[in-house]
């Protein structure tokens, strides 16, 4: 590529070291530095949400009170876990970190379309996080779903917490807008839409959902505040309001938000598998179309969270049928990923292990999702541990595993260092086994009818809960170990990363590691598809 020759003039200067000091980071409009600003912030909340989860699991290890002596504290902890993980960790998750870092690099741009708006989005996020932290002085006990009338009547600081989520929503909207404009306007010469890496396509679909759906939850959260402060009566049945309306409005955002979380992870897997299989992504067009289809259909399935919530039988039937429509593009993606490995030359670097684990975990997430789309079966499973296990397979097994895979895969580009393969694989094994050990027993608890959000439970459920808790500790250990390994290597690692350690064909690997401030010494000209691996005459193994 054109970038090669001129970038070699000064390999030593890069985006990490061209300006120094904490202030240069806090005022930087460089998309790559903003990636790190987000990364540290979201990982802090990942840690906090994880600690809350482990306290919840510890309490549930055995029947009867264990470490938490009153149900209120327990309720606060599972709420904290949900709110931190969803609003502060997974939603910004991949888009705000890897999306920020990679989109300009992948399309051959110097930065995003609105660099200052990008930095502003981070500050908006931090303001939202700070408001959320203040709300912890009288922590919320509603669950992350804020269902009325419980949320409008409880004495905890719901108003502050939903205002925090409202502010965080703006950060998400602004990031989404920025990405949409960037992808439309800043593609390098020759980077046609059908040459965009699937990660960019997935980020594009995500950005559309962010900008369209997030305002709805913002409005809903303000209505909760209006209800609490002024007794507005929107959700209060004694004033002619309707608590079920709150559920509709909430899920109109919060179902699409699942795709905000998981679509970028689909993109990550679509990048990793071709590189380590040395094969073009199988059915590129179908993978792209299915991302956009998931984003579109995702908007009309929200009430499948409400089959037993008192909606009409007619709408339950409608939402069940459209929910099945999501299964089809999702299945297409899985088939294409697996087919990409056919006749490949496969190496098992850590990112590839994560990508293959993702395929398995997502199969479990997807098939258990089918149970919940089936009306009669969902009536049984609604609000049981089966649902808890299903969405953890989707969100943790999907979005979080995708993020960790991406952090490993692009680590050489981001830091200019190589991570330690042996340590990373060990951490992967702990995390993978721990995860399954946590949530497979929860599927079984759901089959036995164990309801979720229970501080205590009948003794018949104890064995499965104990196993689940052991798994949770192993899972937490795996994450800590994987991330500590990356942090350690980034700071003290000795092995310098080459420009393109995996011999990848996509654009971000063609500039130096780490890239210079404006990414490319010269704007590259794209002449090939991003996955042009293999030869027309190659016969495979």
């Amino acid at each position, binding site marked *: 590529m054109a970038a090669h020759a001129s970038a070699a003039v000064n390999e030593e200067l890069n985006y990490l070291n061209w300006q120094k000091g904490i202030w240069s980071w806090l005022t930087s409009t460089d998309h790559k530095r903003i990636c790190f600003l987000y990364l540290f912030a979201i990982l802090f909340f990942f840690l906090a949400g994880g600690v809350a989860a482990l306290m919840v699991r510890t309490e549930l290890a055995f*029947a009867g009170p264990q470490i938490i002596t*009153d*149900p209120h504290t327990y*309720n606060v902890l599972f709420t904290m876990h949900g709110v931190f993980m969803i609003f502060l960790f997974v939603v910004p998750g991949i888009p705000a970190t890897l999306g920020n870092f990679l989109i300009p690099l992948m399309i051959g741009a110097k930065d995003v379309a609105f660099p200052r708006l990008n930095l502003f989005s981070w500050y908006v996020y931090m303001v939202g996080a700070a408001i959320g932290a203040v709300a912890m002085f009288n922590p919320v*006990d509603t669950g992350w779903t804020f*269902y009325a*009338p419980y949320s409008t009547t409880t004495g905890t600081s719901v108003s502050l917490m939903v205002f925090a989520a409202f502010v965080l929503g703006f950060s998400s909207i602004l990031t989404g807008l920025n990405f949409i404009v960037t992808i439309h306007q800043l593609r390098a010469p020759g980077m046609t839409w059908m040459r965009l890496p699937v990660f960019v396509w997935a980020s594009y679909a995500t950005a559309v959902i962010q900008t369209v759906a997030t305002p709805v939850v913002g409005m809903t959260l303000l209505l909760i505040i209006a209800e609490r402060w002024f007794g507005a009566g929107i959700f209060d*049945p004694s004033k002619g309001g*309707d*608590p*079920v309306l709150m559920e509709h409005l909430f899920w109109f955002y919060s179902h699409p938000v699942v795709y905000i979380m998981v679509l970028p992870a689909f993109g990550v897997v679509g990048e990793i598998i071709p590189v380590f299989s*040395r*094969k073009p992504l199988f*059915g590129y067009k*179908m993978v792209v179309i299915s991302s956009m289809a998931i984003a579109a259909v995702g908007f009309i399935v929200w009430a499948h969270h409400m089959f*037993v919530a*008192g909606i009409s*039988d007619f709408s339950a039937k409608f939402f*069940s049928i459209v929910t*099945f429509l999501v299964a*089809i593009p999702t*299945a*297409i993606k899985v*088939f294409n990923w*697996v*087919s990409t*490995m*056919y*006749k*490949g*030359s496969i*190496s*098992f670097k850590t990112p590839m292990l994560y990508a293959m684990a993702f395929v398995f975990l997502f*199969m479990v997430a997807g*098939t*258990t999702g*089918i*149970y919940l789309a*089936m*009306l*009669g*079966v969902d*009536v049984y499973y*609604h*609000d049981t541990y089966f649902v808890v296990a299903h969405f953890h397979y989707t969100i943790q097994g999907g979005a979080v595993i995708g993020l960790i895979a991406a952090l490993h895969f692009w680590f050489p580009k981001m830091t200019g260092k190589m991570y330690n393969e042996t340590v990373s694989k060990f951490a992967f094994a702990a995390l993978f086994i721990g995860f399954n050990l946590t949530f497979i027993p929860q599927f079984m608890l759901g*089959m036995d*009818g164990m*309801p*979720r959000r229970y*501080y*205590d439970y009948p*003794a*018949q459920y*104890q064995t499965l809960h104990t196993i689940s808790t052991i798994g949770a500790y192993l899972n937490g250990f795996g994450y800590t170990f994987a991330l500590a390994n990356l942090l350690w290597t980034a700071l003290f690692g000795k092995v310098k990363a080459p420009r393109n350690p995996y011999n990848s064909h996509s654009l971000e690997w063609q500039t130096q590691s780490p890239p210079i401030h404006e990414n490319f010494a010269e704007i590259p000209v794209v002449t090939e598809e991003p996955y042009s*691996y*293999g030869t*027309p005459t*190659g016969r*495979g*193994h």
Partner: protein
Amino acid sequence: MLGLLGQQGSDFAHKVDYAHDVVTILSVICTVAIVGVMLYFAVIYRQRDGKDHETPRIEGNNTLEVIWTVFPTLVCIWVAWLGYDSFVALRTPPANAMEINVTGRKWAWDFTYKNGKKTTGELVVPVDEPVKLVMTAKDVLHSFFVPVMRTKADVIPGRYTYEWFRPIQTGDFQVFCTEYCGNEHSKMLARLKVLPKAEFERWLADDSEARKLASLKPSDRGKELYVSKQCVTCHSLDGSPRVGPSWLKLFGKEGKLADGSSYKVDENYIRQSILQPQAKVVQGYPAMGMPSYQGQLSDDDITGIIEFIKTVDGTQKVEVAPALPKKSAASRAGTTPAERGKALVNDSGNLCATCHSIDGSPMVGPSFKGLYGRKEKLADGTEVTVDDAYIKESIYKPAAKIVQGYGPVMPAMYEGKLSDQDVADIIEYIKTLK
């Protein structure tokens, strides 16, 4: 087929379970097939020498894309139909269904029958008859879930929702609240009792207790409950020490709690002690001595008990009706000794089930499950084997040999109340709980 969801209690449960079986089998096949293919590719196309080998540039295959779009679509249509079909059964109560009104409130379930009979925490229905629950909530969202019936619906303030089922077998079944509703969400349980039809009719017609209670002034209502809810077992009216504090001049009393802080007995303290007995235990009394009455007493009941406690000045006497008539009826209920023992254990006059579970869960006393033949360590450090003699002694003289970790809380009230034959039957029953 697979029986993953456990016992089927309603006539449509098999439809739900069939749909569940189909999707389980399909899911396992799909997951194993796809992950299997992935692992197969991973093995046979792995780099053997750590170097890239030449690969073909395969960019896709339209036939395959069509196959794996159409095939999942067909499967989805079938599976969606199964879900739809079972849902229609769940949502279509027969016109002749018996309606029972259900009210959810923080944190108990109230049931009202057409003839005015009311219960709290216990839904009694006849077997083989369709029952439609017409439900609403007093405060926040709740959800009425009967796993064995495979049905559930949210219970919403300001509107009515319904669910129905036709029980196909008698027995006691668990009811959960499955919509998060605050602090005692996990204690918002109820029992579904399915009775033979004739027995149900008798139960429904017998409203003497409720009518009597409703006609009484609050303090008299409390006095009735003092006996019928077995408060009398542990709380005296004359100041004599029993398992719990005496109610003599209790109201307004001040003192120290187990954790050293001080308390004053007022309305809220009594209410909390009834619903959450472990929250504020008075110094010198066992921490786990009293079971919670959450869900078993209505608000009016609790007010009645409070009013009654206010009146206790040492002049009150209550007739503790000998439980013998009831008990003897129960003891004849079964045909084998173990069945008679079971009836005795479950007999509300004997109260065994208040403190001893039969499923292994720890309550105030040791669970009966797996008890017989077990070696237990006593509070004084010695070991005993649970045999006939030990159980008999424990029933007649509960304080004699207390297992480590449990308090001296079992009342010595069974000598004379239970015959030797009764005790032998109970032992036979415990033997069956392995």
